[in-house]
């Protein structure tokens, strides 16, 4: 099968608000596919739907050929072993050291002896440049380091799909460059199918093979970075150029300003 993830006719509501309305997208194997859009447009929700943590109202989400919203609990957990996710916060286990955090999925899913687990953990930490930090606790790490450890943990079981949730947010320029390079290198070296959720236009355009732009619950544009640059859709251009006002208004809907002041 060509696509690792295939979404058709996806509808999702939360607290009476429509988050997604008739979304259709494909995530091809071995490529970096970016999901972009303004804050609050549901990018993280889409990752949770793909991971089976949320269920859609309507529509089908196929992951590795399996209809994820119809799987049993056991089947879902089995499928998740093929996935890795990097949360925005890193989501490291605060009671475990860096080493034990990376070893966690190996200890849970394999019966490997300790010396082999140690070697694998050191290899993964070496790939993110943090082998020397193996004995530190998560509270001793900077934001960028925590995200790199979380990345090492996410690739510990050599997943076929890795999802990054806002991996560039809140990083200094050096840490940002390191994460961009790691995402690109991991995709190229291991051929991992990558879903990159972000609103950082510059970084995404440099590494993504294909981009979907989501706003107001719909896909407003998609294509290669080159194609998106010349897209005529005003919403897409407003987002890519970072214009404060346009089709997506600067002001949250409200009654007339003068009328509100005089009230």
């Amino acid at each position, binding site marked *: 099968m060509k696509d690792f993830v295939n979404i058709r006719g996806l509808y999702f509501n939360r607290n009476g608000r429509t988050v997604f309305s008739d979304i259709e997208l494909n995530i091809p194997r071995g490529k970096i596919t970016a999901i972009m859009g303004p804050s609050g447009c549901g990018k993280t929700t889409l990752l949770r739907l793909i991971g089976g943590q949320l269920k859609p109202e309507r529509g089908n989400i196929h992951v590795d050929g399996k209809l994820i919203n119809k799987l049993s609990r056991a089947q879902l957990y089995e499928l998740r072993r093929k*996935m890795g996710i990097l*949360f925005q916060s890193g989501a490291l286990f605060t009671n475990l050291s860096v080493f034990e955090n990376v070893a966690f999925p190996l200890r849970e*899913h394999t019966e490997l002896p300790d010396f082999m687990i140690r070697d694998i953990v050191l290899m993964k930490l070496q790939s993110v440049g943090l082998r020397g930090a193996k004995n530190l606790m998560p509270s001793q790490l900077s934001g960028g380091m925590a995200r790199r450890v979380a990345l090492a943990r996410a690739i510990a079981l050599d997943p076929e799909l890795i999802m990054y949730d806002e991996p560039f947010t809140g990083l200094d320029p050096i840490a940002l460059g390191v994460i961009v390079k790691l995402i690109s290198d991991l995709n190229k070296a291991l051929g991992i199918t990558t879903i990159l959720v972000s609103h950082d236009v510059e970084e995404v355009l440099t590494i993504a093979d294909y981009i979907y732009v989501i706003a107001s619950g719909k896909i407003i544009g998609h294509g290669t970075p080159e194609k998106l640059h010349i897209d005529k859709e005003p919403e897409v251009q407003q987002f890519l150029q970072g214009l404060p006002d346009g089709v997506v208004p600067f002001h949250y809907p409200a009654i007339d300003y003068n009328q509100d002041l005089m009230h």
Partner: protein
Amino acid sequence: MLILEKLRLLGQFGLQLLMSFGRSGIFLVHLLIRKPRFKKSFPLLIEQLYFIGVLSLIIIILSGLFIGLVVGLQGYNTLNKFGASQQLGQLVALSVVRELGPVVTALLFAGRAGSALTAEIGLMKSTEQLASMEMMGVDPLWRVISPRFWGGFISMPILMIIFSVVAVWGGYLVGVVWLGVDSGTFWSAMQSAVNFHDDIVNGIIKSIVFGSVVTWIAVFQGYDTVPTAQGIGRATTRTVVYSSLAILGLDFVLTAVMMGGW
């Protein structure tokens, strides 16, 4: 219109309450009905027995001692008015083993271990640790919740027995060592009055029920919390309030059943 709005809010509250009961019931079923993995579960259980049980020992022992001292003092003064101070051992033992031991231990357990469990699980949820575990294909119900639940279930009766022993010793200190009740009379009155099945076993059964309910409430409130600072604070408060009410309510029901000739 105002009455209709109030009725709507009342209905909404009722529905939310029922949904919460439903979710907690499903949660308990998922927690209890699962394939055991003894090899991997055992170290996690031992760790939780330490955090929930061993670390509660100091508060349990100190509270037991003070309760025993007070019951001994109050009991002696009251019994002495009727010239029955030699029955002090009986009074202390029955009060502690039947009621004070299970109830006070459970209330202290809810305040110390229950609130800590809720806050810990709630914080794990708000920092996405539970979500990341799920996405790694590891069920948090098995890895995080189950060891804590069984840790509480096992710890509670043991803590209750320790509490009761220390409380009886506290009563002995006041009655025999301080106020001069005869030591032999104190112990023999206790021995003849306390029935193993009716008093000790029933006390242990009470503590097992309280332990299960308090730990269930604590882990569920943590797991079901709204993942914000305010949400965790409210969930922790709910754990202590709901657990305390459940303990006192269930104590009445269990006592009524046990006295009814169970």
